């Protein structure tokens, strides 16, 4: 492998993983000199009983300062400011985030405001604004996919300007990530499938995009192996705690990988259909992943071919000639999507036309594809994709992804 002439890698999140790790939070918080944390979560997590589970597991060792469970699906800075007031009013000294990507990003935002002072998160937008150590932040992910517990950026919306603000800083990294499979045990099968495919996309893109580096590669390969080995089993048997633990670990590893090597066109397309049509992120990732791999075969066939080893195992890898490996990787991902579709009773969509909203209506009308293709130019993930993708190139990809047909060369 040709080493990059420069790369930047940082991961310093202490990680506790295992079936009874929630119980260790009070001790770890005491080491961080905090005893009065605020819990940040959302209504869904609360309704699933996960907040109670964490509080119960922590026992009497900790006095909870406040519980803020009003985080919406697409969190904005007003929620952050509101929660920061609750934090201050109750005299808290740390944050425990229990939830998926939105909750974790909101908790990172709250931590910025309560640690650096001020009333609003808006003052800290952009690079370099968060420049010193923040209060202790413990993250307990309840989905195995976003990898937010390992990333150094918080993405929070500004509804007034209709933009998503980025808060990138090494100080934003949580102090502790607690990976306990009990947290993902109640996740419905179709969400398990799409979030795990999100993690799979993080790992694959981290491995073949322009910012790849040897450290992130090793995390990406192991993450792909774990997802490929365990995903279908977990979807068929939701109580499989070892499988759940493997997926949660894979998600964290994929998070480390993509946080340090960035993503490419799959995220570019996914962000755009997410913004314009409200397609859930994990669903968009699982649909676009085979197309992203196929589109980049011209420039990145070698790294894509290497993914066959973790995806299909050493026997298949060894039995496949080198030039056939990339095509087999794409076929394997497509087959995974088919298997997940069958295992979830059709709730895991395979193409854009199958994506429906809660009321059963189609989320992505075919007529919107040209507008989506045009909007892909504005996303930063475009830059790190190996192959150039202009709107004229994105449109056929979107059309194939809408129909579910393979991308021709």
């Amino acid at each position: 492998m040709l080493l990059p002439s420069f790369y930047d890698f940082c991961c310093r999140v202490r990680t506790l993983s295992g079936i009874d790790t929630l119980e260790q939070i009070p001790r770890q918080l005491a080491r961080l000199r905090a005893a009065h944390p605020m819990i940040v979560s959302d209504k869904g997590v609360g309704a699933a009983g996960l907040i109670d589970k964490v509080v119960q597991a922590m026992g009497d060792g900790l006095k909870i300062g406040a519980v803020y469970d009003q985080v919406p699906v697409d969190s904005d800075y007003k929620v952050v400011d509101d929660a920061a007031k609750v934090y201050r009013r109750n005299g808290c000294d740390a944050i425990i985030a229990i939830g998926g990507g939105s909750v974790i990003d909101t908790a990172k935002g709250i931590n910025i405001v309560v640690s650096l002072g001020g009333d609003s998160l808006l003052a800290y937008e952009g690079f370099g604004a968060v420049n010193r150590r923040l209060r202790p932040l413990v993250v307990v992910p309840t989905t195995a996919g976003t990898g937010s517990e390992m990333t150094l950026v918080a993405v929070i919306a500004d509804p007034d300007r209709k933009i998503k603000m980025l808060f990138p800083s090494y100080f934003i990294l949580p102090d502790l990530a607690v990976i306990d499979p009990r947290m993902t045990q109640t996740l419905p099968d179709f969400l398990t499938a799409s979030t795990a495919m999100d993690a799979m996309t993080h790992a694959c893109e981290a491995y073949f995009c322009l910012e790849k580096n040897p450290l992130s590669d090793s995390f990406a390969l192991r993450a792909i192996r774990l997802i490929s080995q365990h995903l279908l089993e977990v979807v068929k048997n939701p109580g499989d705690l070892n499988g759940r633990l493997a997926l949660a670990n894979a998600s964290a590893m994929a998070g480390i990988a993509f946080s340090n090597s960035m993503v490419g066109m799959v995220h570019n397309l996914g962000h755009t259909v997410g913004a314009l049509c409200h397609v859930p992120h994990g669903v968009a990732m699982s649909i676009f992943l085979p197309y992203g791999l196929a589109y980049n075969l011209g420039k990145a066939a070698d790294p894509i071919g290497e993914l066959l080893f973790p995806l299909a195992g050493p026997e298949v890898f060894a039995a496949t000639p080198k030039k056939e490996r990339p095509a087999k990787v794409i076929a394997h991902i497509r087959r995974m999507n088919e298997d997940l579709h069958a295992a979830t009773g059709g709730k895991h969509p395979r193409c854009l036309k199958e994506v429906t909203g809660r009321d059963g209506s189609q989320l992505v009308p075919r007529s919107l594809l040209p507008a989506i293709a045009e909007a892909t130019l504005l996303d930063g993930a475009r830059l790190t994709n190996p192959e150039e993708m202009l709107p004229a190139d994105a449109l056929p990809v979107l059309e194939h992804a809408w129909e579910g047909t393979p991308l021709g060369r």
Partner: protein
Amino acid sequence: MHIERYPELKPGRKWIKRFYLSIMLWTVGKAIPVAAKVDKEIKKELDKLPDNFTLRLMILPERALGPFFYAKMLPAFVADKGLLPYGMQMIIHKDKEGKLHYQGADPRGKKFDLSMAFKSLEAAMMVFTFRESTPTGYAHDRFVVEGYLPYATAFMRVLDIVEVYLLPKPIARLAVKRYPKWSEMSPLRKHLNRLIIYVRAFTF
């Protein structure tokens, strides 16, 4: 210990590299407003930027060169011609009517909505000598972006097209991810626009 045996080493000033980069920034800065008039795709990209918008491309550290130190004392209408490398930077302003103006290299009194800064002289040399394309430079952390990232991606797309116009094909191929195919940019359009950009950017 004989201290005279260990003389203080002074870093070179790298005058040739500084001169080369100043010329490159000046050329790109002069060419972009003209290219926006002749090329529809560049205009479409720049239309995404709001009006009354100032952007700059610069090389850190930001400081005036020694011999040009007295540039600070010159009135703005002289410095705005862009002939004085006040540090190495290129400033472009989009006015209220949506017209673009090259505003030279003098940052005094200007507020920047988007700023792209190469981290060092050598980082800028990697990209401006086309040993690294702009996206590879981005991936290798050669520059930092301050401002709204979608505007930066639009500006980088503009840079790509301008490079295709300004540079001969063998060099431009190194600078961009994919050199435009005939279907995307016909040779007639390319050569004609190239001629217009060169003539208009550097004559009046």
